[in-house]
């Protein structure tokens, strides 16, 4: 009897038994009211479901146990060797596969012509192990050539590509993340297919991969309705990583000011302007002027001002000071900080004016902070204002006398951007 016939036989058997007992149950409660019949039916249903859930708990626990054991074995067999191959300073970055085999303590004769990883689970666990090692030690510069050789030795690229193409969504996400972490080539065909995926996370990962590829039309993949409707902070983090990586590798970065004209969403425009600041694209600052004049979006104006200030675009000072009075309080603060950063000496009166005339304590305090940051001239003015300050305003000046408070005043966003960003494998 073949498998299908056997299966059909058992299914028929279960159906026959099921029908028999259901019929019995039906007859047993036939004369009872509807509520009782329904309750009896539901009780049977719950009992069946209890059995199914118990089986599922058992299955899931077994899967987890099996995975745990495989993980333990793989770590024991390859873990230490791989750590040495990827990070040991005594080992060169140009190892052959046979050298790797001997470093991992495997017998050459037993390994040659055989697959090192036997099944899907082992491959998955192995990839996860290398991935964990990489993300755990991401600060340390790995040995890239050894990593490629290792992937080749264990036939990982093919496995991950298959997972990206044919796996379920969870497998796709982990496979594409690993391909990126291992810096393996991902074919445009695969990426393009993923750009149409229903899962937002998969689409995002695919979009970031296109930025990494570094073609002329870097942000083409983002120019979609999907992105306009779904952009988030995480995108900025990831695009930032990719551009940082390209910068580190000496590749050209896109003209981000030009890209602001390609998107409709003000949030995306804000992100691009922030990126300009982060990647110090001074030469493109004048291109933001039409956007500054045309937009009424508060946040966008603030971002443009911050960028101009940070990138020392001196020609912007007049435009900013002209626009000052019409802006909201938050935008005024952004303009003041930008002007303070430019330090041209032309608009210091703007700070004293804001301190003296604003009703918003935040604006007043920020005006004083701008004076403090303006150098000797500004601090002199600050002292003068303090001498003439009323008792209720003295608290504003106390900040500039206490070193603990000053160091704890939330960092200016511009300073945050100045921090070094580690280039990640992503």
């Amino acid at each position, binding site marked *: 009897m073949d498998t299908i016939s056997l299966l059909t036989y058992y299914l028929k058997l279960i159906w026959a038994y099921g029908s028999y007992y259901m019929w019995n149950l039906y007859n047993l409660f036939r004369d009872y009211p509807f509520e009782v019949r329904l*309750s009896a039916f539901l009780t049977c249903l719950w009992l069946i479901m209890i059995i199914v*859930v118990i089986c599922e708990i058992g299955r899931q626990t077994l899967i987890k146990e099996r995975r745990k054991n495989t993980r333990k074995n793989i770590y024991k067999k390859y873990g230490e060797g791989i750590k040495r191959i990827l990070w040991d300073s005594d080992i060169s970055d140009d190892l052959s596969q046979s050298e790797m085999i001997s470093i991992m303590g495997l017998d050459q004769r037993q390994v040659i012509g055989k697959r090192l990883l036997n099944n899907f689970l082992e491959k998955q666990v192995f990839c996860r192990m290398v991935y964990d090692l990489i993300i755990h030690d991401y600060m340390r510069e790995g040995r890239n050539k050894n990593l490629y050789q290792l992937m080749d030795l264990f036939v990982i690229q093919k496995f991950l590509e298959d997972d990206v193409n044919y796996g379920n969504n969870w497998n796709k996400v982990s496979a594409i993340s690993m391909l990126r972490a291992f810096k393996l080539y991902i074919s445009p065909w695969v990426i393009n297919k993923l750009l149409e995926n229903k899962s937002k996370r*998969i689409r995002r990962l695919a979009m970031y991969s296109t930025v990494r590829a570094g073609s002329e039309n870097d942000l083409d993949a983002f120019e979609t309705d999907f992105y306009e409707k779904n952009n988030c*902070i995480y995108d*900025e983090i990831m695009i930032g990583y990719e551009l940082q990586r390209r910068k580190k590798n000496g590749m050209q970065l896109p003209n981000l000011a030009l890209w602001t004209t390609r998107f409709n969403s003000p949030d995306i425009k804000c992100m691009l302007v922030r990126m300009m600041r*982060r990647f110090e694209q001074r030469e493109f600052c004048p291109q933001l002027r039409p956007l500054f004049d045309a937009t009424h979006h508060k946040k966008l104006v603030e971002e443009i001002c911050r960028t101009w200030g940070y990138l020392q675009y001196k020609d912007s000072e007049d435009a900013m000071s002209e626009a000052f009075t019409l802006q909201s309080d938050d935008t005024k603060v952004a303009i003041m900080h930008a002007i303070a950063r430019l330090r041209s000496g032309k608009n210091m009166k703007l700070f004293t004016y804001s301190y003296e005339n604003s009703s918003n304590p935040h604006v007043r305090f920020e005006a004083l902070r701008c004076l403090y940051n303006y150098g000797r001239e500004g601090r002199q003015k600050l002292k003068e204002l303090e001498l003439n300050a009323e008792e209720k305003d003295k608290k504003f000046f106390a900040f500039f006398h206490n070193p603990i408070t000053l160091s704890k005043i*939330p960092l200016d966003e511009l300073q945050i951007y100045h921090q070094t960003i580690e280039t990640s494998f992503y």
Partner: protein
Amino acid sequence: MWVTLYNIFSIMVFSYSLFILLSYMVLVFQSYRAQVRLKVDLPDDETIKYLMRSSPLTPGVSIIAPAFNEEVTIIDNVNSLMHIDYPNFEIIIVNDASTDRTMELLINEYKLVEVPYDVAMKVPSKPIKRVLKSTDPRYNKLVVVDKEHGGRKADGSNAGINVCANKYFVCTDVDCIIDPMALYRMMWLVVNSHDPMIGVSATMLMSNNCTVEDGRVSEARVPTRYFPMFQQLEYLRSFLIGKLGWSNFNILPNISGGFGLFDTDVVVKSGGYDQTSMAEDVDMLLRMVTYMCNSGKPFRLAQVPKVCCWTEGPNTMKQLYRQRIRWARGLFEIISHHRKLFVNSHYGLFGIVLLPYIFIAEFLAPIFEGCGFLFMIWLTIKGGVNWETTAIIFAMIYFFSIMLTLFVILFNVVADAVDWHSKPKAYLTLLFASIIEPFAYHPFVTYCSNFGYIQFIRKTTAIWTPIQRKGVKKKS
């Protein structure tokens, strides 16, 4: 006439039970869907950490923990908060004019000095006397706020909100043990959301019977004491089925006061915590939602399935009784204060689905159960009980409750909410709890709820009594 009334009541109770069972099944299904979605969208802890820790764009979080007379545990608890792993956070301890040595211990241990601080009273709280910071760079994340006595956690939380400098804040109790990765998990959902995430709820469990090492739970166990064991089961059901299921519709019945993340701006614009409310956490969430809906702004709410926080639950019957009375009064208060949201399509699914559901399934449940119980006694005395029918209906409800516990266990295994995989004893304890719960625990909780409602109606003055903590097992 009595017969007609009897029939109407029977049908009503039966339909009500069916509605509750059906709604739970819907939530189980939605929770399963949410877990499938989160399996793809929420990566493992190490990946989240790897992606977020080195980015300058990772948003900052303030952890607000009000403290009142906590001299025994304050230093351990603050040290535990310091163990949180996140690149950009501050800890704000709000001392609510403790009468013991809490403040003195904090000053000595962390070398605190008073600093000028421009505190804008964005939300109402008792006046802040001083703000202190440490001169030791190791504790540069710590801010201690010393304020006048407010007597409520809500007042302390509001004072913390007035001082907090970050866009997001987490409100917690000073004696909660927070998982070091908790902020990463919650903030991952925030940075991945297109619409502003105004609140994130995280799964909480009982710390009773757990072992704590270096300010973190090193060994999670199911409580073996009578009352905490049932509460563990309740918490798991509530977080892994209820809230996770609702979060799939972008609605949440509440974000626990013990551990929840909020958008500071939205909280300030909604007026902060209500100091007079007995259920300040639910009240604030509803006011936040009201504010967002009235302003026509889109928003998101989310639930993290993994356990992020451990808290000590009531150990004795007296403590549990007080807690449940407070909860029942809080629920009544919420229902009456926010009645304009009910069946109001302006507030989306909150108005159309969630609040009517809370009214029917949570508010009315103790009343129906109480009436049903009394009715049953009366029928027994009269000899009018059909025991066969009773047994069948009871079996339907009883097996459903066991099935629900099994689903909780399954979801825990699938979502890795808490690491009990190699401890079948934990699951067996939960199963045992669910088997005896309908007889040994549920009637007591029902009684407390009804008593709480009566107290609310009679306007008995509510007294906030903090739970007497027994402390957790510590391993040095």
